[in-house]
């Protein structure tokens, strides 16, 4: 779309810039400040340069947390994106059932994140949870997310998919609804199979919303904190200690501010670079599809 050239439009963005600068730039500078000092207490600090960064890069627990985080986010995206699109395709298209389906679908999104953890902690407990008790007593498979790392992962994945697939589904549904009927009529006249309709009409038209869904899902799964904190506390052992959990352990638990700050900056950088790459890649895919 053609836009007007006007540098005075900057003025309109000033409120946003002020508010975001206040809550992003000032704290970020504080983090940078922490990361180059060793802080023992109020007034006691020495400048250590890049030492913190070096110690972070050699921290094997951090590297483990990073791989764990990649595995988690990768699995989450692989399950949630296709499942969300499938649900969106199955959603009713008109009538009162649309409202009902949307409300039910959006429900998990509006539950505070630690309540999500609580719900699943209760639900999967072997003694009082429906899921845990069924698996243990009816199916006879020992399942305990507080003892077995694999069970903890299964529980977390179930929770994550339960929690966030609706977001992908809602966005994909929005994309589907935006496709004019004439496209479907044309497909019908051409005798296109449902798969061809999906592949050449619905999927390209959903590209925009799926980009948003993918970015949001990637960011939020990569930054996950409250749910595993409540559900497993990062355990058993360190098996579900993701990056945010490890970071908070460092900063608040051990009060190791310098290391935590250096780690924060690296963490932030990883997220931004990955998001930028995703964003660019998806933009280019789009350009290839509709020249």
């Amino acid at each position, binding site marked *: *779309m053609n*836009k007007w*050239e*006007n*540098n005075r*439009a*900057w003025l*309109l*963005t000033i*409120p*946003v810039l002020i508010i*975001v600068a206040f*809550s*992003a730039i*000032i*704290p*970020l500078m504080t*983090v940078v400040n922490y990361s180059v000092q060793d802080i023992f207490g109020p007034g006691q600090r020495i400048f250590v340069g890049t030492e913190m960064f070096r110690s972070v890069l050699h921290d094997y627990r951090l590297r483990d947390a990073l791989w764990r985080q990649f595995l988690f986010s990768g699995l989450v995206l692989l399950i949630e994106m296709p499942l969300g699109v499938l*649900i969106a395709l*199955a959603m009713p298209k008109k009538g009162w059932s*649309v*409202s009902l389906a*949307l*409300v039910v*679908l*959006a*429900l998990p999104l*509006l*539950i*505070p*994140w*630690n*309540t999500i953890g609580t719900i699943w902690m*209760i*639900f999967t407990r072997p*003694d*009082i949870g*429906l899921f845990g008790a069924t698996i243990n007593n009816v199916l006879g498979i020992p399942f305990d997310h507080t003892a077995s790392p694999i069970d903890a992962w299964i529980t977390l994945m179930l929770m994550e998919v*339960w929690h966030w697939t609706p977001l992908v589904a809602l*966005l994909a*549904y929005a994309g589907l*609804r*935006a496709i004019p009927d004439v496209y479907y009529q044309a497909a019908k006249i051409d005798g296109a199979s449902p798969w061809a309709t999906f592949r050449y009409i619905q999927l390209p038209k959903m590209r*925009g919303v799926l980009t*948003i869904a993918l970015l949001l899902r990637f*960011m939020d799964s990569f*930054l996950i*904190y409250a749910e595993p904190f409540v559900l497993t506390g990062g355990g058993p052992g360190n098996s579900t200690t993701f990056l*945010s959990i490890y*970071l*908070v352990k460092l*900063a*608040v638990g051990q009060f190791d501010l310098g290391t*935590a*700050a250096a780690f*924060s*900056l690296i963490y*932030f950088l990883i*997220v*931004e670079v990955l998001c930028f790459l995703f964003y660019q890649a998806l933009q280019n895919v789009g350009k290839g599809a509709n020249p």
Partner: protein
Amino acid sequence: MKKGRKKLIGLAIYFFLLLLPIYWMLNMSLRTNADILSVLTLYPANPTFENYLKIFTDSSWYSGYINSIIYVTINTLISLMVALPAAYAFSRYHFVGDKQVFFWLLTNRMAPAAVFLLPFFQLYSTIGLLDTHIAVALAHCLFNVPLAVWILEGFMSGIPREIDETAFIDGYSLPRFFITIFIPLIRAGVGVTAFFCFMFSWVELLFARTLTVTNAKPIAAVMTRTISATGLDWGLMAAAGMLTLVPGALVIWFVRNHLAKGFALGRV
């Protein structure tokens, strides 16, 4: 119509699984702690509202809900007010550095909350805003404002520019055009944006917990009180959890028609 039925069954199974964990918490919230720990039943045999009564009569409990609602509302209002003009600038004008600023805004949405935890605590205690609703509301702007700009920009770009041009020729000033013509045109978009701001502010815990002590303590933090020396009070915890669902459920119910329409119209 065999295919249609298969879809419907699939969707029904999905919704059943979606509601099951929530139902289980509802079930627990209607039972006493002793009852929960003694037997596993699919429905409460002797439903009791004891847990809910305790929450509604104890001010340290219910004030948590009030605090959460206050800062979520403030945050939604601030986010919308600052995001509307900025989104208009991004959707209508080319200016030096527009793409870079737009992406920079988005990067704040990606900032790990854990990174900003301590600096926020320092910043807000320095300016004396610690333990106030406004502190949490401002902190949540970090991720809500960029999101609001992003969503609104999508909706605004869907409105043809000729409408603006016609209005300016008719002698409308920019503010007057914006408020009397433009905002009503994108009200579905404003609704959807408000919904997302509300949602992300309501569910966030880390900032809300860190920046508050007692006066503005959110319900999510109050809930940790159920963990005491004698073990967990499961019934009370489940009841508190169920009540955190209510505002969200109310909000979706009110915007449900907007949501369908808004989703269909805009980019999001």
